[in-house]
């Protein structure tokens, strides 16, 4: 009997399982190359989560996600599949919002982001300009949008509710209507950055105590005390974009793009079968460039404005003693006190740096130059590197 029992136990212990379902191979997870995204459209505004093991960012949608102009996504620091964050605000909705530039509060509990609204001059069958524009602001037949308004939304990161904790409407300058029906478009430098490269010029930044947000409306840097109906302009920050509040709360860094010289011309919006134009456009267009931006510093109370020289899309080190920003095709660490700078290796064409909470990793949006088969237009992808 003992032998039988032993035999039975042996047989029972040898039981195997039916084959499981097919598993899709994802060998890029835990890939150490540092490249996290491959989107053929531009990914921007990386921001670390509290544990420094994932990055949030914004990107135009791609296959596998709902169609949207911009979504808030999360990707593991070691690479892998992205997932939409804040399901309640961007999944399963009758109208897919255009979201961008998520930023996480210092305590990791709250998120602020922008919902964007654009306008297209789609009502015309043809836009005819008086002379070929040297640097066209956009194609008004509807393939490009003209940023018109943004809403700064704040909510707990893990909220599944439909409503936000707070929200602020942010008008964007650049388009006016005259009483005669003429349309006047002015493509300011921030417009060009947004339209051409998708740069999140309005990106907000939390104050260390998570009660205020600094952001840009393209025209100025503003500080909003969360919950208040309006924000306050920081004086002297005209054209300021992409503010970054220092961890010690004493300063806000921002970049001021190069404005250059504008050109103006007139276009007409035409309708099929009509001889006379339905509308007249007066366009003023500034040149596009991501170089020659000035890195600026200002105190949250609007005093102490100063320049740290060339620099774009800044972020702070944890000790608030240095700023990391794009300068001369690369990222540099710039001392706030002395202004001296040190190039950070392997950051060619890197923008919008974000330092992990533990200070060990640096994430950034790297510009992939145009010309490859999969990136004919050039774009930005999210990368991460040890810091």
């Amino acid at each position, binding site marked *: *009997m*003992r*032998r*039988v029992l032993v*035999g*039975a136990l*042996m*047989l*029972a212990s*040898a*039981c*195997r*399982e*039916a*084959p*499981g*379902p*097919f*598993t*899709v*191979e*994802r*060998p*890029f997870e835990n890939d150490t190359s540092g*490249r*996290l*995204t*491959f*989107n*053929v459209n531009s990914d921007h505004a990386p921001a670390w989560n509290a544990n420094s093991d994932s990055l949030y960012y914004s990107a135009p949608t*791609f*296959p*596998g*996600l709902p169609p949207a102009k911009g979504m808030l*996504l999360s*990707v593991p620091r070691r*690479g*892998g*599949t*992205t*997932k939409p964050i804040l399901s309640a605000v961007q999944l399963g909705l009758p109208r897919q919002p255009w979201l961008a530039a998520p930023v996480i509060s210092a305590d990791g509990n709250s998120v602020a982001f922008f919902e964007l609204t654009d306008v297209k001059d789609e009502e015309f069958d043809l836009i005819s300009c008086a002379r070929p524009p040297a640097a066209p602001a956009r194609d008004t037949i509807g393939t490009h949008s003209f940023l018109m308004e943004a809403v700064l939304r704040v909510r707990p990161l893990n909220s599944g509710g439909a409503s936000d904790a707070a929200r602020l409407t942010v008008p964007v300058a650049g388009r006016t209507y005259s009483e005669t029906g003429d349309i006047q478009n002015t493509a300011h430098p921030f417009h060009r950055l947004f339209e051409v490269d998708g740069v999140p010029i309005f990106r907000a930044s939390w104050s260390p105590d998570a009660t205020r947000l600094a952001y840009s409306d393209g025209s100025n840097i503003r500080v909003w005390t969360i919950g208040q109906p309006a924000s306050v302009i920081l004086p002297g920050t005209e054209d300021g974009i992409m503010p970054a509040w220092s961890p010690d709360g004493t300063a806000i860094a921002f970049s001021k793009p190069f404005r250059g010289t504008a050109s103006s011309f007139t276009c007409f919006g035409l309708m099929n079968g009509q001889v006379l134009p339905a509308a007249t456009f007066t366009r003023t267009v500034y040149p596009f460039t991501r170089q020659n931006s000035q890195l600026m510093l200002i105190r949250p109370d609007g005093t102490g404005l100063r320049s740290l020289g060339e620099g774009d899309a800044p972020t702070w080190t944890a000790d608030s003693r240095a700023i990391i920003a794009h300068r001369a095709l690369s990222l540099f660490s710039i001392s706030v006190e002395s202004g001296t700078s040190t190039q950070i290796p392997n950051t060619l064409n890197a923008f919008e740096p974000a330092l992990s909470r533990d200070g060990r990793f640096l994430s950034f949006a790297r510009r992939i130059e145009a010309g490859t*088969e*999969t990136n004919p237009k050039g774009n930005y992808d999210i990368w991460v590197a040890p810091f």
Partner: protein
Amino acid sequence: MDKLPHRVASGADGRFVIGAVPAGERDLRIAHIGYKPILLTRVQVRPGRSSDVNIALEASPVEVAAIEVRADRQRLIEPEVSTTHETVVGRELRELPVDALDQVLELTTGVSGGHFRGGRIGQEVYVVDGVELKNQLEASREGFGLELSPSSLEEVDVITGGFGAAYGSALSGVVSYTTRRGNPERWESRVAVTTDHWAPASWFRGFTGLSLSSGGPVSFLGPGATLFADVLAQGMLDADNRARGLTCLTPDDVGAELAAAIQNLAADAGTRDLYCPFSSSIIPNQRGDKLIGFARFDKPIGKLNLNASMLRNRTQNELYTSEFKYNPTYHLGQRFNGTLANVNAEWLTQKATGSTSFSVRTALMRLDRYLGVVDPSTFDGIDVAGFRPQSFKFLGEDFARKDIIEQISLGSAIPGYVVPGGVASSPFGTAGAGIFFTEGTPTIASWSRSDVLSTDIAAARYTPGGSMYRAGTTAKLYRVETYERALAHLAGSMPNYARFYPATLAAFGEANIQTDDGMHFEFGLRVEGFRSGIDFQADRSDFLSPVLSSSWKVSLMPRVGAAFPIPGMQGRSGIRFNYSRVAQPPDFRYFLDSTIGDSLRTDIRRQGNPNLAFEKGSTYEGGINHLFSDNVAMTLAGFRKTLDNLVSGNLQLGDVGQAGRFSTGDFGKVQGVEITMRARWSGISLRAGWALQQATGLSSGNENDSTLVGADPARTEFPLAFDRRHSGDISLFLGRAAGLEKAWSASLTTTVQSGYPLLRPEAGGGTGGRREVTQYLPWTSITDLRASWDFGDLPMCVRCSWRVVFDARNILNRKNILAMRTNTGTVGPTLGEVQLLANALPIPPASIPRESPAYVLTLDLDRDGIITPQEAQAARFAAALDRFDPTLFFGEARQLRLGFEVAF
């Protein structure tokens, strides 16, 4: 009869008859004062026929002499039998390498693939302890539906030609099961376990079987009362294993064009990983199990023998489908439940001048089938080597079985059903869209339930001269429900539902007369009638069409047979012939409309016909038996079977009304020759047979319809779909399995069969898309082996003995092809068919980055992190090719099981 209440005193001339002995191998005890008593073992008793036993007693001066035990010689020929039949006794059943009784039937000459002598599946009837049973609703599609465990049987008798008037509702065969009864002297039990979970991967298919049986006296219910119980539980990780497992098309499987495309796909470094990305020796999503429980109680009360039995079986398994193979959650599955309660009472008088019996049998049978989407929570429960005590749960089964009026008024989809789609979890990602469904569920839900109350009364008279006279009557009352919802995921889609109450009545009389010179004549007459019990509108496409009531259909079936020895051959040769008129009610499912498109308003394709008549035929058979020596005998039989009225199974597409209605307009004939051999030496027993036959006739199809009115009814006969020309079988028993008192035992079975015809489009196009047979499927063969070694007593267990069992299936690892595509004559499609499927949906224009949930590494042919539309296009061809996997075209896989048996 030893261990049975049957006994009789012989006449002065020593002749005797014992009537109504249960079929099987029985022991006969003979005693006479002044003679040495004899226990004659293994006397073969056949159902409904007499068995001759001749005993010479030896004088003994000892007053109480020791009993002499003799084993009855196995009879190699039966010169008194005019029918063709094959008997497998319980001892052999327990030694054969089989898991189910249908595998035993396959070892009968003339039976292959469930077809009896070229007949369609369902043209046979099953008799369980004298009660004639059939899945009358859908036998041609689902088989019997009720299953017994091989270890619960005393005997299986398969009649393929010349069945007597006692049997009806069959055109091609009768399968008679005699169940075991408990030993009235002591309890005997047996436990057997076999499994292949220890076997190497190439022999492993995930099978585990447990068999328990026990029988003995129930003394507190009086002398002679016995109980027998049997449980069979089988767990299967792959309930329908196939020789190539989950496989893909290879260049050798297909035509030249597609073969070249496959070679290119497999050779290119970029697309190599897209070729056959999912293969496995065990087919996924085919988990299942079987549970059969049987109990029988016997009690003699004077001249009355009572027995009652209860059978309950449950077979359930997932069903692999190619389009859902990458769906991690939802799959089709099916569950069969069968229940049979049987009560028999037989009053028997035994005299030296003859034996008379009257019997009353009542049976209640329920067959319940469900086909639908398996609820994934089914697999959360207890699972022992693939066996689940609990029944499969199906999504929305409660809803689907809800009152039909209430269900329709709710108008909702079946709960849990979701539109199939999705691309995740497939190796082809978005390129597999519309080819594979990785999300959502299959869309069909169907079930059927048929209850039958059967009562029959019979009387029989057996004479010492070997003649037998029988008469009886049978009534069967049915309650049938069927439900089918093809688009169960769509709210508002309508199910096909029917509930009706058919009935059948039959009466028969037969005489089996044996003359003094050994000639046997059999005369019988059977009258059978049925009605569908449905009032119906003659033409469902015309609401003004009159409503008719179905009427009783009656068939008269004379049956004649004769068997006699050839003079001068000393009983070593015999000749036999028989003629039968046969008929069976058509499957009840043909009474019902069946639809495509799930809408009774617009998409009637086949209009059921509740007024269908009997399917009828005639069989003629002649044969000769010869005993070459005491060890070898052969039988040669020729037969011809005409099938005059068969239900036309397919109608022309788009036909509605009278033209699109089932009828019994098809016909055919089967003729053939069968050679069987029986041989027996010490420790060796051999049965072998070869059947050569031809089945031709008219079977309506989509392009040729025998029922067309006013047009061009098809009248050209083709080989019937079940026209298998050759089939051979061998059963070899060695050692203990052959009756030898040895520790070892082995049984080997082999079946060899030619293929079925392949109806292909007529060369040159033909007219009306006609088809022709230019090709037959390839030959198939399978060899199984079971061996055991008896290790004797089991320590620590009184009266226990144990043995180790090896059980191997398809030991030659034949990759038998069971089906082919009719248009190509291979297991694969044409290149054009693959391309058509690949191009059915446009490729999404957007590139897929690596971080996308839709990104699949294998689609990124250059591994640059982005799947371009061009890469997706290449992958889509690979996906379409993968969808055409030929997994289910192949036969059973090779398996090796190890186990043990304990008898106590």
